[in-house]
């Protein structure tokens, strides 16, 4: 069943040109999707538009068939979609614990918030040991875990994660992708943007290829990985980049 649906969505930044041009895509409940495409293709813009940080100029954004396009971000979040931005957007001067408390902002019952924080600490033991540390002073990997943990505080139905492995060492990226796999096991629908195409495709079931603000291709992730023609046509340069990164790791 379609959880999220974009119907011919055109979107862009204040006073600027259209970045997304009539993008249509469907996300089914419980599945994992990856958006791939070159730098500046508009991948982050898709997520921001769904999250309510940008208002679609044309077209519809539907959650369970009801329009959420142009809704305030807090209302989109309350409806069950949470967004982990590319820059992680933590509260740098707040501690790890306080960041998690802020993650529970929409939950008025403080007891429930502390219970959830305990669950997050069980999932990410490193965060428990850093509970009193200021978020801004942590390493990139720890910050990404905190960003994911904070997003989980809202108990979302769907998570949109923008470039989770950006700037992380390969081993740390591995950890993050393990976490992402466990999110899938928790039944959370995933919409992932990943510059490391190989990893992104391996972590997901379906993929959208975005270029210059338009959707170029929609296919099962493994087909893109396996089909030499698609690889060459659409991803030549990018996959190479991904592969290089992978080989360097080994």
């Amino acid at each position, binding site marked *: 069943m379609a959880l999220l649906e974009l119907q011919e969505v055109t979107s862009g930044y204040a*006073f600027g040109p259209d970045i997304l041009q009539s993008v249509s895509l469907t996300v089914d409940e419980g599945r994992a999707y990856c958006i791939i495409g070159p730098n500046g293709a508009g991948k982050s813009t898709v997520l921001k538009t769904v999250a309510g*940080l940008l208002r679609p100029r044309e077209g519809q954004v539907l959650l369970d068939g009801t329009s959420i396009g142009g809704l305030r971000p807090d209302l989109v979040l309350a409806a069950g979609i949470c967004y*982990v931005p590319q820059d992680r957007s933590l509260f740098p001067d707040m501690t790890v614990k306080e960041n998690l408390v802020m*993650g529970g902002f929409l939950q008025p019952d403080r007891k429930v918030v502390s219970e959830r924080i305990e669950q997050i600490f069980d999932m990410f033991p490193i965060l428990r040991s850093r509970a009193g540390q200021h978020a801004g002073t942590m390493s990139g990997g720890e910050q990404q875990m905190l960003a994911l943990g904070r997003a989980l505080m809202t108990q979302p139905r769907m998570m949109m994660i923008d470039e989770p492995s950006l700037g992380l060492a390969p081993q740390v990226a591995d950890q993050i992708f393990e976490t992402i796999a466990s999110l899938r096991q928790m039944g959370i629908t995933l919409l992932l943007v990943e510059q490391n195409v190989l990893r992104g495709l391996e972590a997901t079931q379906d993929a959208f290829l975005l270029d210059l603000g338009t959707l170029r291709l929609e296919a099962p992730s493994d087909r893109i990985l396996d089909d030499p023609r698609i690889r060459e046509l659409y991803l030549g340069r990018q996959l190479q980049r991904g592969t290089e990164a992978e080989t360097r790791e080994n």
Partner: protein
Amino acid sequence: MSEVAQVMILGLLQGGVYALMASGLTLMFGVMRIVNLAHGVFIIAACYVAYFLFVGPGWDPFASLLVTIPLFFLLGMVIYRSLFPRIEGSQRFSEMTVLLTFGIALVVEGFLSYFFTGTFRSTNPPYTTDAILIGDLFIPTAQLYASMTSLILLLALWGFLFLTRTGYAVRATMQNRTAAQIVGVNVRRISTIAFAIGMALAGASGSLISFLYPFFPNSHWRWIAILLALIVLGGLGSLKGAVVGALMLAVAAAFVSDMFGATWAPITFFGALFLVLLIRPQGLFGREARV
């Protein structure tokens, strides 16, 4: 020795009120990135409210706080909601707020001049000329009351920011607006509240300075210049910085005025501003610009 202590005390007493004025200004910048050049003119407008409550029904300026605080809070909500959404989302939001608030300052100043003329005024409750003597230290009563009241109001602000849910949301928005949005903070609402609180602080400051510093419609330029220097020293958007910056510069100005005469006191602020921008542009508690 005791003269040093004396100048210190006078400086700190002034600094308390400066801190109150500067905190509203820095709050607006911290939460919304608004550079509010109209902060001074609203302080002066509040002086007039206190003045007319004093000469009319004979209210003590401290009693006028009961009017200026809620009145300017409401005014802040109306101004924010009616003028700022139009420029929200602009890449050059802060620059545009400079122009917008400069315009507001000129308009309000125009109204004040039209209705109240350019004459110097001040409220003069009986205690303005009183002083308390401790040993050979001379403590002007009015200054003491005003800075104690500022301290109470600043503590109330602190309590709001650190102990309430809305206060958490305000601080979160100050640290990272997008982050606040994605954890479910309605930043439009928080911005309105923060702007209104900033205005309420301007209102309160007006009541307090109405008997400390004689005012006329134009005098807000002098204030805004000083206040900007204070918050740049403290670090734009840092409340702690605004308070520390205000106390430091007020004490420095008191020493300068003691040594070279009162006409030199304002130079302290602009000299300090110059040095800060040269040596540590992010201010005492400011964050270095992040990319």
